[in-house]
């Protein structure tokens, strides 16, 4: 939705939801939409573990956004 409104967007989900995320992207007319995935689970992580996850996937977020280093 944000992407359609012209806002560059990256969606992040856990790897458990990859198939569902792709199916939803298809429903919205974005087949092949790229998602960043992180290992399941997330809900039970503490703050430090969340920070570590973000560090891990940030390069992927920047790649999808097309940010050049």
């Amino acid at each position, binding site marked *: 939705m944000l992407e359609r409104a012209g806002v560059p967007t990256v969606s992040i989900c856990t790897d458990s939801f990859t198939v*569902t995320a792709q*199916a*939803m992207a298809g*429903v919205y007319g974005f087949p092949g939409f790229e998602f960043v995935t992180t290992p399941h689970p997330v809900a039970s992580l503490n703050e430090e573990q969340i920070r570590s996850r973000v560090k891990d996937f940030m390069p992927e977020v920047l790649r999808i956004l097309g940010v050049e280093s």
Partner: protein
Amino acid sequence: MTAHADVAAGLAGAGEAPQVDPAEVRRVMEYYAERGWTDGLPVVPVTESYLAEFLAQTDRDPAEVVLSMPHLNRHCTIRLAAINAALAGCRPEYFPVVLAAWESLRKEGMAERGIWQSTTGTAPLLIVNGPIREAIGLNSKGNVFGSGFRANATIGRAIRLTAINAFGLRPHQLDQATQGTPGKYTSCIAENEEDSPWPPLHTNAGLAATDSAVTAMVYRSCIHLEARHTTEPEQLAGDFANTISRTGSLVHQTISALLVLAPEHAHLFARAGWDKADLQRFIYDHAAVGRGTLAAVGKDAVSRRTKWRLPAAHPDAIPDDSEVAAGTGTVRVLNSPAAVQVVVAGANNAGVSAVIETMGQRGRPLYITRIDPAPAPAAPGPAPPAEPG
């Protein structure tokens, strides 16, 4: 001995078996299965002429939408609802019940907001009241949650097949249920009004007892409660309150529940002079859990944003506000007497009841729809539509 004869061996009066080509029957079954148009069980083939028998049960336009999922841009029309009712094995005369079920599900609102896709893995629950039960053979007595009754089995299944075929909610794809529940195949019961001491459920909505109606809820678990020993209403109600108060289902600050009372239990309360409101009030006051018990499972506070339960030490945690009285350390699991509803079903043969853990009700009104009677049969007119192909 033929296969027909094997099947019929134990059945008195099984009658003459239809003479059909079984290979053709299997070919049709496989055709539907290969397309993913089933819940895993065989479905009934649907032709335009058979569909017309379902559509003749209502005056409504086949293109009218009965339920939408805007986030999927998918909509179920009367026609799609009828196709899936036929696939499910409904007889055409069940279709007015299916349509009333869709209206109650629409009013209830959680399906349209996507609950059927949730990891929680819920199922819709339909409760039918009124004379339609007798007219179409809906079971309200023994084995009410079990198998053996075509109307119960297929009306509930019609909702599931529509979820799969009209909304595309297939497991592993748009249906993300972690485990789901057996109730996803079918969940349709009727109230045992004849063996109940109280007014039937649909009269809560101002309907007459002589009306027929469908109430819809969303649930995950159906917990059995067995109490054959007591004649004290407080003991029995306390047993229900204790069952409702388990921490596993306490995802939010409070929960909601439906008591499906066996007639024996309902009459125990009625003999003591309790009506449904008395029972609801008692359960509301006694369905509670100690703060220490909540702390032990990490559910002693709620999220600032979602009100889901969390450990008090979580950075998003704020205290809940559901103590029976501030500072007592006893936390209610219901937000009002209306968060627990009561219906009577099952055989009048034992003190065996059920607690249905409903989602989202939490004191909101029941969602009940009167079943519109089928229109009078039309005078003989043009030939029915040709079958496709």
